[in-house]
């Protein structure tokens, strides 16, 4: 089965207050070594997979550069990364090749490098079309810059574009949210992601909100009820505009769903390279192996035996659980009959009981021999997923 390749590039021009990823502002002197290490990992991928008893198909049909902000790398570094990737893997001509990008980082040289490297999909971290909201969380772009970048991409031939929005940013109101959603639809892009702000210990803004403080505009973060309203408005508006929801946070015009991200949710094999990158590869005997790389930059740049990747063999029971808690993220849901054929009636017995309970509580719904989250179930999906875990 062809592999999806993910490369994490943890560098940013500035760290946004809501960011809970292993990315940040690092010295440019580390960029070159990072690229070198990533190239080495591409070359080493097959033997790495063998070490962990995993299978790695060198045929690749999706590539995703995420971050961080991959476009902070120099054009020649970007070209070098793709060149080495193509040396180590057979990237299909029709492969989906996505690069995440912050509006305003796409200068002519970078754009040329991306086009030359075969990149055919760009994901923009817009978050808000209201400049004040974007600025409040540390985004460095404005609405005008975003619109200009979209135009330049299209002129360069890249039309498969995703825009990210965050519901629940400081200062957001029903009107300003409506505006951002309208602007997204207005651009005519084929893919939109809508994330509800995650308030947790892993971001500065999250910590501040939890502590009840006022830094990072934390006291202007809308409450849960408003954020839910925003999300529901977005679902409704995007669906009506023909950008249909296909996952909890993702919307696309038909045929423009992210093929790479779909691999995560449908448990297709993918290889992760870079800081805090995650792989899921097939293993002998039909089970899967998950491999997590060190989550600090130094850990990746200067690998030592003291910080080995975390390797987890997914058991058959866990694989079934994953099928539920990943598969149910998708609007297509999961097929209990299909899972029963794959995992057996005995393993499915308790899970069917959970399904029945969730259906009774209005969290899941049955349709055409499949089950999927209801709109209410989507909002409390963690509560639903938890029930499928042992």
């Amino acid at each position: 089965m062809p592999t999806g390749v993910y490369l994490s590039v943890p560098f940013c021009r500035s760290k946004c207050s809501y960011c809970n990823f292993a990315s940040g502002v690092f010295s440019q002197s580390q960029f070159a070594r990072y690229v070198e290490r990533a190239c080495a990992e591409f070359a080493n991928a097959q033997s790495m997979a063998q070490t962990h008893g995993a299978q790695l198909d060198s045929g690749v049909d999706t590539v995703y550069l995420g971050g961080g902000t991959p476009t902070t790398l120099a054009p020649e570094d970007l070209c070098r990364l793709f060149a080495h990737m193509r040396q180590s893997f057979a990237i299909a001509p029709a492969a989906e090749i996505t690069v995440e990008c912050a509006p305003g980082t796409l200068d002519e040289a970078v754009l040329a490098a991306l086009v030359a490297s075969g990149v055919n999909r760009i994901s923009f971290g817009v978050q808000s079309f209201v400049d004040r909201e974007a600025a409040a969380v540390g985004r460095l772009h404005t609405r005008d810059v975003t619109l200009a970048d979209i135009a330049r991409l299209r002129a360069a031939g890249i039309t498969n574009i995703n825009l990210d929005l965050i519901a629940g940013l400081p200062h957001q109101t029903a009107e300003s949210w409506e505006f951002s959603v309208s602007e997204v639809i207005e651009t005519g892009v084929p893919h939109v992601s809508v994330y509800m702000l995650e308030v947790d210990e892993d971001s500065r803004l999250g910590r501040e909100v939890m502590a009840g403080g006022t830094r990072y505009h934390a006291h202007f973060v809308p409450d849960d009820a408003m954020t839910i309203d925003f999300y529901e408005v977005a679902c409704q508006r995007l669906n009506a505009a023909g950008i249909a929801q296909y996952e909890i946070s993702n919307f696309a015009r038909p045929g423009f769903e992210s093929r790479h991200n779909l691999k995560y949710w449908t448990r297709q094999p993918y290889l992760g390279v870079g800081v805090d990158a995650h792989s899921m590869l097939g293993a002998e005997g039909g089970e899967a192996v998950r491999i997590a790389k060190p989550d600090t930059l130094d850990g990746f740049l200067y690998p030592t035996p003291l910080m080995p990747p975390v390797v987890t063999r997914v058991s058959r029971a866990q694989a079934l659980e994953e099928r539920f808690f990943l598969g149910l993220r998708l609007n297509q849901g999961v097929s209990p009959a299909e899972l029963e054929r794959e995992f057996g009636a005995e393993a499915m017995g308790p899970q069917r009981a959970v399904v029945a309970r969730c259906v009774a509580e209005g969290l899941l719904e049955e349709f055409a021999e499949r089950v999927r989250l209801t709109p209410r179930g989507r909002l409390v999906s963690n509560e639903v997923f938890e029930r499928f875990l042992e």
Partner: protein
Amino acid sequence: MDQSLIRNFAIIAHIDHGKSTLADRLLELTGSLTQREMQAQVLDSMDLERERGITIKAHAVRMMYPAKDGKTYQLNLIDTPGHVDFSYEVSRSLASCEGALLVVDASQGVEAQTLANAYLAIHNGLEIVPVINKIDLPGADIPKTQEAIENAVGLDATDALLISAKTGLGVEEVLEAVVQRIPAPKGKPEHPLQALIFDSWFDPYKGVIVSVRVMEGTLRRNQKIRLMSNGKTYNVDALGVSTPKPVEVEQLDAGEAGFLVANIKNVADTKIGDTVTDDERPCNHALPGFEELKPMVFAGLYTVDSHEHTLLRDALAKLRLNDSSFFFEPESSVALGFGFRCGFLGLLHMEIIQERLEREYNLDLIVTAPGVRYKVSKTDGSVIEVDNPSRWPETTDILKVEEPVIDATILTAEEYMGGIFKLLEEKRGRQKSFEYVGSARVMLHYELPLCEIVLDFYDRLKSVSRGYASLDYHLAGYWTSPMVKLDIMVAGESVDALSLIVHKDSAYERGRLLSAKMKELIPRQMFEVAIQAAIGAKIVARETVGAIRKNVIAKCYGGDISRKRKLLDKQKEGKKRMKRIGSVEIPQEAFLAVLKIGEDSNK
């Protein structure tokens, strides 16, 4: 030993007034311990005793002191517990002595506890030597402290000893005063044996070790002894004294204190205050003052993990080997599963037991709200004793309820009286007397229902007086009071572990506070949860916990499924630690909330 060269004495002091430090100095000065052997505060040997700065068990330590008159004296220091919960034990320790040092902090003055014990000592006919400690501290006010001793205790304090136990200043004079001012014991070695048990504990190797003071006669090794309260007889295997290292002796004569080992298996057989006599030549009568200890405070003990129930049972059984003053019996709760109804001497005693169970036996406990034992007269003519809300009779079956009442003595500074009066009134107290003892210092005598003390009284008293009030109490009898059972219902189901017996007049307020607290503590569930407080069928308060509206991970960043699974696992684990009542998950803290509502109402 020549009886005229023996002195038995105790030290009476408030917590932190320097009792243990003084004891350590005395041991050091008499060469009982070298500096090197001193561990801070030798006598408080239990970890808990050291940490809390309180003495729980009584000890007797023998010191040899070469006095200025050229003679060497045997000084037996009988260290006593320092908390109101253990006032009976204190009275028995004091009964073992002819004198006591009354230690008062020069900057703090006399506290209620000290006063109560000083009265107890006077009542027992002890010679009291006032000692003013911490005179080296900047806040020391010697004349004021003398005045307080004279006014509150009624003792002449003009020749009080002025010392600093910390620096050793004046400590030598304390030893001289013990020799000069405290009388030698009386009692004849040739009389029939009459010895007072003032403590006992269980040693896994030797069995029960009994601390005794021989009042009359002689206690010898291999003697057949009899315990007068239960008639049980034993053969004395060993006798000894603590220096504080244990040293074996052949006999203890009238006037001496020490310990005996007699192959006694059960600490409950050696009751404090009991009399030891010779089986063949018994004394005519037992020593006065013996009482069977009765628990005053009751609570349910449960393990958080219901599988640890048998571990708790074993731990309780082991603890009881060493402490016969607490009792336990199995009980079960719909909410918490299998547990034990336990009776304690008081709140501190309860805390100590709980802490020892958690520490020494590594158990995670849920303790239900402490309560007292009521006498309930039923319409059918019967009278039952109820200490467990789940056994409370139906309202229609109750004729009258009597609740235990205490006599409380509170010593405080004038400026805090307002707050204290208000608190006492809220707690249904009745004033018996109110007097000034020294300038700006006030002594209050009140009658108070015991159940009002056990919940949060200490903390409230401390907070309204900024720590400058002390309390002592003893059981005084019963009042007839309109007590009712307050139930808490979660999603329509009554949670037995949250039920409380309260006075009718405060039932509404408590119900309101408790349901508000529950609302804070019970996390949102998938559906709306009603929390109700009820008396019988009548709902007196209601709160609602709204349903979860949003719990969603938006992003699967870079295919990191492990992070997501960890999050879900953690969420699931959190729910496992909760107790499930019907379809509602209730966290452990909710069961402790009953204890805390008073604190909040105070804020």
